[in-house]
């Protein structure tokens, strides 16, 4: 299986630029802790080796290892729940290594769905999809129990992206998620009406049997009615405890302090930015978590609107090239693997930058290739290596 395509320069150049920009930004964001920058340099070096390895790894072999990867991830996730360390108990310490098991779980989720979803689409087995959702759902639930609601919901989004790419269609996903939508929409009467309208439209379009109509309408109505009641039964401190448990980054007492500081930092960047190492919010350490969650704010403050646009465009180009490869790939596994990487990047970029802009809830999702940390960087380089592999081998099947 020899590569049968020329080098994809769009892919390579945007990837290299992103890695370089990430290092430049880390130099600034690490402030007086320059050791963070040197650590990141080491991570990048490992990442490059991982990328090269993955780009030349036989994809058929990867497909075969899916079950082993699954068991491996399960073990790591369970170990993290019981022996997790670090600020939120999400790191697993093995010797000198601090591992984030949820990053490996994301990778596993992509490989797992790449292997099974096309097969299930091709020849449906009774209960096959349910079984798949159950096995992959365990990964999501274990991540949620760490507790890490942010990563768990990103895994859920990833999973549904994969289901969509495999050709299962939107209405199916919507119906599957309808209990969650029903619970969320019950906050406001208007949003609930909107949900019911969409639900009816999808049921109508999919020409559902009366039995199905009744099932979904009754189920979602009960959930929508019960959610506010159940929430109301909790005392305020219990509600606060629940939200803090599910999402420790929510900062219920600081009430958006981080996001406000982030908005100030981004806004003060203006069109051309305050200049490298000149961002006052960053350099004066006003920005919270500035080398991790809010790393985009550092970039936006120092390089302004133009710099931010440039960064987003690089991500856009990378995702476009990967998706193009996924579209072309003859082998369904290769296609799914590429699409999974594209979804992975998309979700992380949108959620992370959306958070720094105050458009998304505060979660711990990293900005790919830019945020400080080895686990996610190496996972991303691994995925990018495999997807570059699929781009070059699109003809193989």
């Amino acid at each position, binding site marked *: 299986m020899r590569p049968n395509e020329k080098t994809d320069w769009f892919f390579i150049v945007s990837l290299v630029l992103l890695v370089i920009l990430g290092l430049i930004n880390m130099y600034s964001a690490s402030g007086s802790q320059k050791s963070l920058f040197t650590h990141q340099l080491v991570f990048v070096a490992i990442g490059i080796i991982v990328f090269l390895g993955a780009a030349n790894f036989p994809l058929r072999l990867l497909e075969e290892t899916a079950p082993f990867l699954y068991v491996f991830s399960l073990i790591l996730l369970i170990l993290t729940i019981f022996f997790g360390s670090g600020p939120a108990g999400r790191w697993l310490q093995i010797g000198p290594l601090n591992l984030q098991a949820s990053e490996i779980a994301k990778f596993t989720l992509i490989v797992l769905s790449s292997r099974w979803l096309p097969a299930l689409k091709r020849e449906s087995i009774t209960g096959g999809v349910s079984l798949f959702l159950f096995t992959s759902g365990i990964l999501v639930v274990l991540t949620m129990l760490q507790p890490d609601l942010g990563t768990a919901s990103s895994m859920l989004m990833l999973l549904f992206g994969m289901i969509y790419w495999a050709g299962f269609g939107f209405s199916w996903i919507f119906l599957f998620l309808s209990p969650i939508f029903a619970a969320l929409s019950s906050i406001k009467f208007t949003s609930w009406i909107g949900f019911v309208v969409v639900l009816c439209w999808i049921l109508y379009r999919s020409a559902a049997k009366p039995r199905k109509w009744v099932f979904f309408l009754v189920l979602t109505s009960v959930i929508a009615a019960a959610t506010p009641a159940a929430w109301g039964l909790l005392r305020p401190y219990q509600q606060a405890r629940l939200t803090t448990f599910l999402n420790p980054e929510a900062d219920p*007492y*600081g009430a958006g302090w981080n996001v406000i500081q982030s908005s*100030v930092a981004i*806004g003060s960047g203006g069109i051309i930015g305050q200049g490298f190492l000149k961002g006052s919010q960053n350099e004066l350490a006003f920005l919270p978590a500035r080398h991790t969650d809010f790393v985009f704010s550092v970039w936006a403050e120092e390089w302004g*609107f133009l710099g931010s646009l440039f960064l*987003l465009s690089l991500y856009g180009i990378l995702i476009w090239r990967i998706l193009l490869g996924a579209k072309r790939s003859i082998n369904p596994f290769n296609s799914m693997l590429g699409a999974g990487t594209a979804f992975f990047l*998309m979700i992380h970029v949108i959620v992370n930058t959306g958070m720094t802009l105050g458009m998304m809830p505060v979660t711990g999702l990293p900005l790919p290739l830019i945020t400080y940390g080895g686990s996610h960087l190496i996972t991303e380089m691994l995925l990018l290596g495999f997807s570059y592999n699929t781009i070059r081998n699109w003809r193989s099947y």
Partner: protein
Amino acid sequence: MRSIPHFHNRPFRSVIMFMIFFFLLLVSKLIELQMVKGDYYRELSSKNHIRLIAKPAPRGIIRDRNGVVLADNAPAFTVSLVSVEFDSTNTMLLSDLLKMDIVELNSRLAAANNTPFRSTEIISGLTVQEAGRVADNLYRLGGVSVDVVPRRRYSFGTSFCHLIGYVGLADSTRVFEGELSGRTGLERILNDRLTGEYGLIREVVDAHGRVVEKFEEGDIEPSPGENITLTLDSRLQLVSDSLIRATGHQGAVVALNYETGEILVLSSVPGYDTNLFIGGISIKNWEAILNDPGKPLLNRSWATPYPPGSTYKIVSAAWLLEAGIVTENTMPDPCYRTFHFAGSDFRCWGTHGRQNIVGALTQSCDTYFYRTSMLGDMDEMAEFSRGYGMGAPVTDILPGEASGALPTRELLNTVFGQGGWGLGNLMIASIGQGEVLATPIQMAVTAAIIASGGSLPQLSVLKTDSYNDGNWNPGTSENTYRIIRQGMKLAVSSSVGTVHRSMGYLPVQVFAKSGTAENGDNEDHAWVNGYIQEPAPIAFAVIIENGGSGGSVAGPVAAGLIEAILESYHETQ
């Protein structure tokens, strides 16, 4: 050649559109922040003085069962400071204005520097005049502010010191220095419910710390903590306190409703004024409390185990009946005041002759119990007593509740060594001496179980709407309850009963058992436990430390409590 697997058209276009849609959303927000409002934010960041000020939430109010306020919040003035905005050359000035020692002030400034951008409390509990001196000089004290905050206030601090406890500075601050949390008692146990949600004010301030404008996103109002109603009756509690004080001894009174499980009185004398702890207790006051010979920090009603003496006989008598060692008509050999057994003298407090178990309870005859308990098994008696709430805490909420102790073979082997003890230990235990230890609340529970016939609900100090019945059923037969009740009734109404003289005059039937517990070389502890059925189903226990005779010292205290209960019911009808 393998056939190319079928794979449908991939939704490339819609995924790309999806991405472009979200990226455009992000870019539009970037345009808003960086281009439209860029100058505003650059201005803000050049000063970076968005200041977050926490507004403390009023703590929940604690009331008694009748709505009498036991703990609430009074307004108090505080001086706070934002560390980065404070010019340290002003430290002397601030020290003068606050009349605070410069070393003390410096240590508080250092603490404030832990949250440099947030307002941190320097001193609280100031009067208007004290706060006014600082307020007049605010113009030259950048970063300093004077605020009104709620301050905890206890209505009957001394009387409820052990139950309600007090608040102090929190160990780990969530928002700002100066945050309060419950340190002892219910204030600590119910801290999550009593603490409200802090409010926040966001202000844009200039380099001198003066407020230029409110930040556009508005304030968050504090939401007060949950109010809590206790089952306790503050009037009965205060009456109990003064009754104990009148004896001139330390002591405790516990009363509870045995149909609902609600605890009405948890009195422990002496106490200390919890208001002294608000804002930090002075060393002088703290030493006064520590060195008080009455040991006010000691909580006598549920955290101190005592030998229960003859009040325990209502439990051991029930055991004798249930174990089949005696029946109602069993008459062991007479009481000659001293019972010689195995070379030792086991003494009774009187000469009671030959009597049955009702008579033995009425007159509290020790010899009856010596002669009968020796036929039983020590471990069985301990196990039986556990069913009556002894040997383990009886509530799940009272802080530091003592377990008490019951003699078992295992315990005695540990204490005296194998063979170092004998049947005498069982005989002594059957009259509530020796290795038996119990708290006043446990002795109230034993009376409550007999009163309720084994359907005492779970005890509570928090008022709720529903009670679960019969959580406390030792499985004793109704006939046994009847016999014990008869003995307790005659102890009050018979002219030879041990508490007849102190309680027999009461207009309602009282069921009681006195106890005069030997206590080493010290004066005996005076005990009484029992219950009334009218006007309300209330069980009680009284201990007067080193008070002497149970009937003549603890009895009048219990009688005074019952009089107060009668008055309450008289008033409400």
